[in-house]
Structures are given as structure tokens and as C-alpha cells.
């Protein structure tokens, strides 16, 4: 453990606590969109995947690294894009109904 690690642990703890407190305020009717949104966020590992692939490209065994790195990028990107897009689709339904009722 060095200073960098300690800072990372600190960031982890603070982000987790603030996140927990904020999520506490989300009403249960929004729990499915919340969860799929959080799910999209877990694809943040895309950053690691990009880094790893770029690193592999400069390593001796380029092929294996590139193949697995690219798999990781695709997977994480599907996670991010699919998660956010489907959450958006759901939340659009939540928002739409009011206008619909006014229209009809």
C-alpha cells in the first residue's frame, strides 16, 4: 500500500457512502430504471478495457492481448450503451403519460 492506494481507498469509501445516501431517496417505483442505470454505470470498466488493450498493443504478444482487450471493450461498451439506452426508454414512458393524459 502506498499513498496512491490510500487515496483510492478514500475515494472508494466516500463515493460509496454518498451514493448509498442518494439512492436511499429514490422511490421504489423507479427502482427498475435505477437498477438498469446503475448497471450501465458498472460498464465504466470500459476505461480499464481501453487502457488494457492499448497496453497490450505495445506488448510482445500483441495478438492475444488485442483479442481479449477488444472482447472486453465490446462487452463493456454493450453494458454501457445498452444500459443507458434502455433506462432512457423506460424513463421516457414514465414522463410521457402525463402529456398523453392531457392530450386525450
Amino acid at each position, binding site marked *: 500500500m502506498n499513498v496512491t492506494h490510500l487515496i483510492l481507498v478514500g475515494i472508494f469509501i466516500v463515493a460509496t457512502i454518498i451514493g448509498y445516501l442518494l439512492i436511499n431517496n429514490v422511490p421504489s417505483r423507479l427502482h427498475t430504471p*435505477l437498477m438498469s442505470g446503475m448497471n450501465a454505470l458498472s460498464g*465504466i470498466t*470500459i476505461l480499464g478495457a481501453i487502457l488494457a488493450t492499448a497496453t497490450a498493443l505495445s506488448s510482445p504478444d500483441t495478438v492475444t492481448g488485442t483479442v481479449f482487450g477488444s472482447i472486453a471493450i465490446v462487452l463493456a461498451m454493450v453494458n454501457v450503451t445498452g444500459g443507458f439506452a434502455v*433506462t432512457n426508454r*423506460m424513463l421516457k414512458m*414514465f414522463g410521457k403519460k402525463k402529456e398523453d393524459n392531457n392530450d386525450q
Partner: protein
Amino acid sequence: MISRILLQTPPPDLLSDPVYYGICILLTAAVLLGIHFMSRVETAKTGNQISALAVAAGIIVTLIKKNILTVWLLYPSIAAGIILGLIVARKVKMIQMPQLVALLNGIGGAASAIVASFAWLFQSNESEPFGTATAILAVIVGTITLSGSLVAAGKLHKILTQRPVIFPAHQIIAAAILVLLTGTLLAGVIYPAIPATALLPVTIVLALTFGFVFSVRVGGADMPITISLLNSLSGLAAAIAGFAVTDILLVAIGGIVGASGLFLTQIMCKAMNRSLSAILLGNTVLQNIEKPTGNVAAESDKPDGKTATLSPVEIIKAARNIIIVPGYGMALAHAQHLVKSLAEKLAAGGASVRYAIHPVAGRMPGHMDVLLIEAGVPFDDVFEMDDINNDFKDADAAIVVGANDVLNPAARNAEGTPIYGMPILNVDQCKNIVIFNYDLKPGYSGVDNPIYNRKNNVWVLQGDAKETLTDFLSKL
């Protein structure tokens, strides 16, 4: 460590460290703001968009900071992921949301595991134990998330059996695998001489097996808890991978996701009266089916031939204050739109119609709300259990569609049954109850519902909810 390796090929620093860290903190704050916006229906969509933009910005900032903006080989994979993700998001039906979330959890976990594997394999010989330990741990958690989620998704999508599959000595197997995994973790950290290429496959196989063993014993109704837990694990995997590659954003945002999943898991556990440890240890409901004690005195005649002269149609017609209780059975029968038509017809006749949602209705937290709102039910008419539970005693009628355990009064007094102590909707306190259920069999918990045996003012219209509701609507 990966990031360090990259920085060693000294790049022209496009982004100085303080600026980069500042941006990371800003982006984390943006994600938190997005979550804050999720606390209200009106702002939730904006919140989701803020989070999405933060991730997009995170990708761009990382590409700039690590000076890999021009590594063109990265972009085809990114584009492929975006296109696939958009297709999936567009095609999925709302009733399939639980399996989609499970699937996405799984692939997120897999991505984190691959990232961590890289960190493990590429680390320099004199690297610190912290880096090695976090890399191995992230491989383990990510891989467990992968196989656990795939099994959960398979069960939800009915590719695998929805019933719990319990092997002989299930808990011992699970515990043994955990011990072995701890062993590989310790071996990797204490003996850096063991090549990671040898230890990695062993770790992956063990973790895959554990995820499978963990998820396969979970039954349909426990899915909300399992999905929440896997969601938490996918975030945790990202966070731990973030430690391994020293990336602030991964650590912070992964931590937030982990916390959110854990929070939802707790809510689900409370709503099902289950302790998390019991679920982790695999004490699934079906292991101890018992008949409820005592209180089902009159089990003689099934409640179709009612003594009352009134028909359910007349009762509902006369009711001014009606509460509808939808369950997962409604969703299975694709009867949401009929339920909505029924509510609209009754409301047009001057009645007040509201919906009462049990927290675990559906297959993931909040699932029933999404299904109703997709069918076009205004969300102002949809109430959470705690907000409406005191109103059942004053309502003229309750209409139950495809729900059973969540309103089973045995939860209050039948000690020793799996649902004892679970908070339920107080449907039994209502003057008149009309039930549209497929059959009178016990629900998933295996406990008989005494409401079915009540003599007065309970009408059970058995059959496919689509047919019974259509018939009912035509008579109304």
C-alpha cells in the same frame, strides 16, 4: 500496473495530473448528481442522461490522458459495442427487463475480469502485493458475476428451470470453492514466483463454478434479491479492477454501483422477510414447505359456489373506491392492458381506482411499476405498499390480478411457514375481494392462501387472466 506501464513510455502530457484528477472528481460528482435526479420521476430522465454523458466524457478524458487517442484499433470495438447495445436496448420487451439487467451485469463483470487479468499478467516482477491482490480479487468477483448472472438470466428467460436446483451438499461445495479461491488469492500474493499464467485459469474456473453454484439454487421469486446482489457485484468488480489499474473513475463509480446494488438487495430482503445471509447460504423457500398451521379451518368446499346472491360484476359496479392489486401473474398472462381498460371503465363510471404494488411484485425491484406504466397506466394512480396499505379497510372492493403470496394473511399468523413475517398487502381487510387468478394453488411460497376459503364477499374467477378479464369487462 497498466497505467504505469503506459506512463513509462513518456507521453507528451496533454493533460496534467491535477487537471486530470479534477476532471475525474467532477465526473464522479456528475454521476452522483444524476442519481440524485433519479429520486423524482420528473427529473429521472435528465439524471440518466447526465450519467451517460459523464461516462462518455470519462472515455474521452482517459483516451487523452493516456495518450491513446490515435490508437485506431480501439475504435472498431467501441463502435461494435455501441451498436450492439443500442440494438439490444431497442428490441427488449419490458417484461424481459430482469433478464436483460442480469445479462448486462454478467458481461460487465466479464469485462472487469478481463481488465483485471491484464493487470495481473502484465504486472512487473517487483510490483506490490496490493496491486496483485486487487487484480486477483477483481478477476474472482468479475467472473462470479459473469457465471452467476448468466444462470440468473437463463432462469428468467426460462432457458433453465426456474425451480431451485440444489445439489447434495450444496453449501459444502460452495464453501469449498470459496476456500480454494481464497487459496489462489493468497498464493498469488504471497508467492509472486508462481506464474500468473498458471494461476489465472485455475482462478477463472473456480470462480465460474462458484457463480453457477450460487445462482442455480435460486428460485423465481428470489430473483429480485439475486439480481440486486449481482448488480452490486458487477460494480464491485469494476471498483476492485480500478484499484488494480489505479484508475480513480473506475474506483469511484464502481463503488457507487456496488452501494446501490447492496441497498436494493437490503430493501428486497426486508420486503420478503429474508436475511441476506440466509439467501447467501442458500436457505431457499422451497426447502421447507409446510402447511400453515391451524388457521385454514374450513378447507372443505372451494369458494366458487358462493352463497351470496350478488355477482362480482354487481359488486364492482357499485363500488366507489377500488384498489387493484396486480401481481406477476398479470404480467405472465399479458393482461396489463386489460387491467388498465378495466380501471378506465370503472373510473369513467365515477369510481376512484388506484393500484397497490408490493415491493417484490415482479422479478426485479420496481418491475411491476414499469409494466403498468408501459401499458399506459398514469403513475399518479400507482401506489407503493406503505402508502396505500391502510386504505384497504375503507375501500369498497379490491381486485386482485395474478397475485397470491403478497396478500396471503398466513404471513401474519402462520408461524413456521416461509412467508411468516413478510409484510403483505392488507387485501383481506377489504369488504369485497374479486380475484382473477389462474388457479387456487398456493403461490411460489407453497403456503395456502386462507382468503380463498373465506365464505363471504370473496369471488375467485379462475383461469387465464386475459380471458376472465375480457369476460368480466364485457359484463360490466
